[in-house]
């Protein structure tokens, strides 16, 4: 589904990732951990095409990402839902409009949008906050709204970058439950987090592969987590 083969990424004079290989199989669940600045976000950005490898091969849905045109890249991103650490909402639009943005940009009819949107926002527990603006939401609500926006197009892959970074334990468990539920629906999930307690909590709910980035390389984490 998404495959990195001997991928390296260099920014300026510094190499952030070196000779990384990774396969995200359909329906799999992955945690990506490592200290801050290890390259977790960089790896996620490579996965959704926001960055292109300096060397190596990156393919998604059997397409060489480096060779995709701009329109094809846009289509690829519709198949990969991303929960950004800072959520990236448009503050002048309501929560409902923000969550519906992917539907809007993909040209889906407004009537279809309303039904999907209501169902989805109820699923993440924000059914009563449709008309709120992003600055009015709490950290947990923003993260759940970001998750709703990431999955509204029913993508094959969901990538989450530190989704529990700004929320309390209870909310992080709630978000984890939603992500596990998505995985049970057949979605491939990759969560970048430095929160080891989140990974431990997930062990009882889902069979997850835990990857660790260390010294610019990716390794399968041991049982010490």
């Amino acid at each position, binding site marked *: 589904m998404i495959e990195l083969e001997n991928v390296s990424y260099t920014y300026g004079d510094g190499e952030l990732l070196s000779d990384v290989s990774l396969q995200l199989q359909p329906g799999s669940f992955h945690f990506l951990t490592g200290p801050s600045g290890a390259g977790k976000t960089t790896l996620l950005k490579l996965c*959704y095409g*926001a*960055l292109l490898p300096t060397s190596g091969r990156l393919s998604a849905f059997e397409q060489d990402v480096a060779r995709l045109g*701009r*329109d094809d890249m*846009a*289509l*690829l*991103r*519709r198949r990969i839902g*991303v929960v*950004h650490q800072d959520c*990236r*909402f*448009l503050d*002048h*639009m309501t929560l409902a*409009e923000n969550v519906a*943005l*992917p539907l*809007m*940009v*993909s040209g889906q009819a*407004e009537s279809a949008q309303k039904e999907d949107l209501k169902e989805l926002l109820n699923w993440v527990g924000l059914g009563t906050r449709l008309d709120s603006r992003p600055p009015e939401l709490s950290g947990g609500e923003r993260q759940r709204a970001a998750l709703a*926006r990431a999955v509204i*197009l029913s993508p094959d892959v969901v990538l989450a970058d530190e989704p529990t970074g700004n929320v309390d334990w209870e909310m992080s468990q709630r978000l984890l439950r939603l992500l596990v539920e998505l995985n049970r629906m057949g979605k491939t999930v990759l969560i970048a987090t430095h929160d080891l307690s989140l990974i431990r909590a997930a062990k009882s709910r889902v069979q997850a592969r835990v990857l660790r980035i260390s010294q610019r390389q990716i390794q399968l984490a041991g049982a010490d987590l």
Partner: protein
Amino acid sequence: MSKSTLRNLLQRDARADRVVPPTGYTAHLTLFVSGAMAFLAVFALALSLASGRLADRWATELAGAATLRINAPTEQLAAQTDAALTVLGQTPGVASARALTAEEQAALLSPWFGADLPLDTLPVPQLIEIVEGEPGLDAAGLRLRLGAEVPGAVLDDHTRWREPLVDAAMSLRRLGWVAILLIGSATAAMITLAANASLAANAQIIEVLRLIGARDSFIARAFVRRFTFRAFFGAVVGVLFGLTGVLLLPEASDEGGFLTGLGFQGLGWLLPALIPVLGAGVAFLATWAAASRKLKELS
């Protein structure tokens, strides 16, 4: 750009339009620039059309006429005039020729010498008015023949002063069109600047849209539509003010000469209606080019 792309770019989509916040100084700048430029374009158009009319009038009024002047001693004047009229009567391309009466000649001189000029005491040459007909006057041939038969005759076919006048009017008309082109170019430049400023101010929004799978055409559409409609409405207001200004100009009159004939005539009044359409077209192309360029710079 295909027809469907063009249609998509202009098709109104209220939800998509909300993606870019409708605020910022670029909105006011676009409205003001397109309004001011449309106002100036109305006057440039009026000047160009009036110059064209003037050039046509001067060319047609003077092209079909010539004047023969007989400079001779008083005792030979009548004989040479008769000889000249005979020659003219036999010349192909002369529809009619007649000697001006003493009163007519006095009327021609009165603006310079006054109405009470004693013309009969002065050695005034006799003027003969020639109206040109088919197949056209051969001025060079006529001069040769007159030189032989009427020694005091001087033929003036008006070319000497008609051509510079027509050239001047045509130059004025060209200047009008150049002014319109410059106004269009300046509008395009200003709208490109405003669009670039708007795109830069909304860079984060564009990035979010790209990340959630928006195509460049979707993003460009939000900006292109907005600038196109702003330019159109600004130009409509500018044209209305411009037409009001033209209406307030004095009516055309012989006394006022060229300056009082600057307005539009007949169907010419409809031409300013094209200015908002052209302004919107300029804004559309300028914004589309700016948005395409800017989006390609982003990942």
